[in-house]
């Protein structure tokens, strides 16, 4: 640390949840005018540390010093008052209220005891402009905004509170590339204005661009602190996971012969203004990626296959035969055998208060029951297989799934569908906000499933994943497939260029639609 008295010091803080040690004598110093990155796997204690600093949980022992004076926060509001504002990974916006309502929510401007709506509107407009999101209408309801816009509102809301210490917990995970660069500009400006920023991210390139100082957490302890740029990515990842970091992506097998019949095929799919004449095919054993900027119709395309969209035009074929899929229940039937790993595991993937066991068997209840009665022994066997196959870390099968870490929750979502042995697997950004170790396991699993004969369609916002995992990548732009990249063509440069729909002299799009 350069400056004499750090703005915030955390000393010997410990926190236990039941028998689990989330934090064990953790230390951290944050100085004025710096961006401090915190790295670590999920479950390493980062989230707990932030919750302690932000006043969400009280530590069991240890102390916090702000400006050299000891402080304790009874609530998030108390931490806010002291100038500590946190942008949480789980968005803290209120869906039924407008953007402006949300931005001023902790301290609305008042006039005659009532909220001054004109002042509120002004504050919201200023905050949105500061966050580089002036395109968002202050009167729009938050629930009508897509995830990436909500995240921008969340950032604007934090700025409106005039923080001294701003904590960003995976705050860029849902953002588009354009928004990320705007936010980086904002964060660098805040640093020059003398704020201290705590930045938590799984994206190494973001940390490399932003951070001044890094601290790595593992098993609830801070294991290393170093100046940004003084360690290589491999060294950092080794510190984080405590094991050798090699071959994060499994090797790709030689691509299936182009002559093989496609398992899943779409012909001229169109839906409202979101999908525009999409034709594609995926063969058994193939991992096909969907690329492009966020929100170009990738999500809708997966939902179209899974029978969620109404008024879809065009044809879907499975094993060369046209099928009419009217619901997710129809999509998972034996003749089709489709599974979708959804984007938002907390709402579309899991029933958080229900047990791990119940969540695992939800998609397979029809197979596990006779005459409407669940065969508990068969259920147990299948669950044991899955917990073993995916190495799901849980204290037991009968605890609420919401108590697991993010990575393990995602494994439960995947396991739930693998129990049906799907022939077609659709994945919607399955690694968002989960740790490196679990990501790696998911990549390997995907390849294993493809090798076992599944057809996989994989949407990811992370270009590295598309490059590392996919045999082919289809790049969407404005609801249409603009480019197909095969094998060695899948490079970051090609992905970015086609995502922005700029691809000069290359040959026109060749879509693998077999006659």
């Amino acid at each position, binding site marked *: 640390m350069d400056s004499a008295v750090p703005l915030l010091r955390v000393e010997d803080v410990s926190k236990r949840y039941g028998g689990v040690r989330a934090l064990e004598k953790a230390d951290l110093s944050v100085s004025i005018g710096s961006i401090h990155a915190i790295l670590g796997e999920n479950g390493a204690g980062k989230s707990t540390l932030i919750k302690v600093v932000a006043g969400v949980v009280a530590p069991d022992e240890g102390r916090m010093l702000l400006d050299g004076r000891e402080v304790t926060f009874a609530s998030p509001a108390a931490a806010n008052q002291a100038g500590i504002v946190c942008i949480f990974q789980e968005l803290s*916006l209120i869906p039924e*209220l407008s953007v402006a309502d*949300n931005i001023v929510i902790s301290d609305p401007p008042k006039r005659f005891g009532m909220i001054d709506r004109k002042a509120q509107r002004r504050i919201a407009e200023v905050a949105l402009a500061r966050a580089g999101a002036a395109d968002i209408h202050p009167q729009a309801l938050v629930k009508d905004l897509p995830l990436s816009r909500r995240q921008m509102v969340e950032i604007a809301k934090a700025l409106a509170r005039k923080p001294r210490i701003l904590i960003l917990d995976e705050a860029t995970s849902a953002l588009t590339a354009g928004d990320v660069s705007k936010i980086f500009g904002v964060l660098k400006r805040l640093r020059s204005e003398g704020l201290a920023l705590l930045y938590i991210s799984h994206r190494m390139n973001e940390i490399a661009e932003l951070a001044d100082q890094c601290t790595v957490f593992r098993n609830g302890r801070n294991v290393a602190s170093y100046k940004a740029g003084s360690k290589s990515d491999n060294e950092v990842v080794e510190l984080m996971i405590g094991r050798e970091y090699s071959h994060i992506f499994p090797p790709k097998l030689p691509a299936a012969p182009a002559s093989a019949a496609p398992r899943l095929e779409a012909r001229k799919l169109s839906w409202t203004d979101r999908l525009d004449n999409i034709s594609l095919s995926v063969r058994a054993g193939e991992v096909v990626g969907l690329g492009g900027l966020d929100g170009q119709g990738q999500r809708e395309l997966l939902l179209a296959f899974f029978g*969620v969209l109404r008024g879809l035009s065009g044809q879907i074929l499975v094993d060369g035969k046209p099928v009419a899929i009217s619901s997710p229940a129809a999509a998972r039937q034996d003749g089709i055998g489709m599974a979708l790993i959804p984007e938002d595991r907390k709402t579309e993937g899991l029933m958080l208060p229900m047990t791990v066991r119940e969540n695992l068997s939800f998609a397979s209840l029809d197979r596990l029951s006779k005459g409407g009665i669940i065969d508990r022994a068969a259920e147990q066997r299948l669950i044991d297989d899955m917990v073993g196959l995916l190495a799901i870390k849980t204290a037991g099968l009968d605890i609420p799934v919401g108590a697991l870490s993010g990575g393990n929750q995602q494994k439960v979502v995947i396991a739930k569908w693998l129990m049906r042995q799907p022939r077609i697997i659709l994945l919607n950004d399955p690694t968002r906000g989960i740790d490196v170790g679990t990501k790696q396991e998911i990549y390997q699993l995907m390849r294993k499933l493809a090798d076992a004969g599944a057809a996989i369609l994989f949407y990811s916002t992370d270009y590295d994943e598309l490059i590392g995992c996919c045999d082919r990548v289809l790049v969407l732009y404005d609801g249409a497939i603009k480019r197909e990249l095969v094998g060695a063509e899948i490079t970051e440069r090609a992905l970015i260029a086609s995502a922005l729909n700029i691809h000069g002299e290359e040959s026109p799009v060749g879509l693998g639609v077999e006659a």
Partner: protein
Amino acid sequence: MKDWRYWLAEQRGTLLALGIFIVMFVIYTSNHPAGFTANVVQTAANKGVLLAFVAIAQTLVVITAGIDLSVGMIFLLTNCLASWLVVGTPIQTALGVLAVLAVGLLCGAINGAVVIYGRLQPIVATIATGAVYYGIGLLLRPFPGGSVNEDLADALTGRVFGVVPASLVVLLAVVLVIWVPFSRSVLGRAAYAAGSSETAAYMSGVPIRRGKFAAYALAGLLASIGGLFLTFFTYTGEAAYASGNAYTLFSIAAVVLGGVSLFGGKGSAIGAIFGALAFRTIGDLLFVFDFDPLWQPLFQGIILLVAVSLGAFALFRVRNRLEWFL
């Protein structure tokens, strides 16, 4: 999108309830032998405002994603109490009115305390407190009886300037003095926020508990204003169990008709008022079309179903099935 379109989207539920009410009321008055006269409007208003006050009470709680099954019983209890207290000289009467309102506020505050600080489910907590309130009402009036200051009663159930029903003026005043400030205050916003997403509200440092408590307490106050008006119309107090339950259930119907979401966080008392007025007009419609009053519950049920289905028509336009569950 332009500002007014956001406003329109926000007010859709309220405007739909207004539309339903106007259609029904036009059919009613155009078939009424006397037609659209001050007398007809006054009678309709006096019947309508009772449910309207109880519906505003229900709205306040429903916004927090709760439900208050005791509003009908607070309504009865305050009716019984008013039949003892709102009598005598103007001063005595005024003190009586204040006492009745204070008891309503207290009942609501007890509900709020039990739900928020006792952490009980609103549905169970208010069934229990509702039974207690009814029990006290029954002790106050084991048999129908009592009286009320008839000058005040006649003034508030009569007409202002010979045309405008006084009960509607009071309703408007209540909206302006209680609902509008509440909905625009920090506490009101906290109530909406808690109903929409309590965790997000907590994480944002919103005063959730105070907001919810204010909503429950004001609900009790509104129910007691309803109870006062019941006394003004009937000149007596009566602990009629069936009537209390009916008001509770009709208030839920009225808020739903008025576009207030039972999931919380959305809707306005203005919508609920039109919902209540529309619901009340159903009975009047049966009267002008010469149906046996025995048909009334059946028709109320059917019209409620139809009206609620109107709101569900939007689901046919949903092209992403996931939006069904939002």
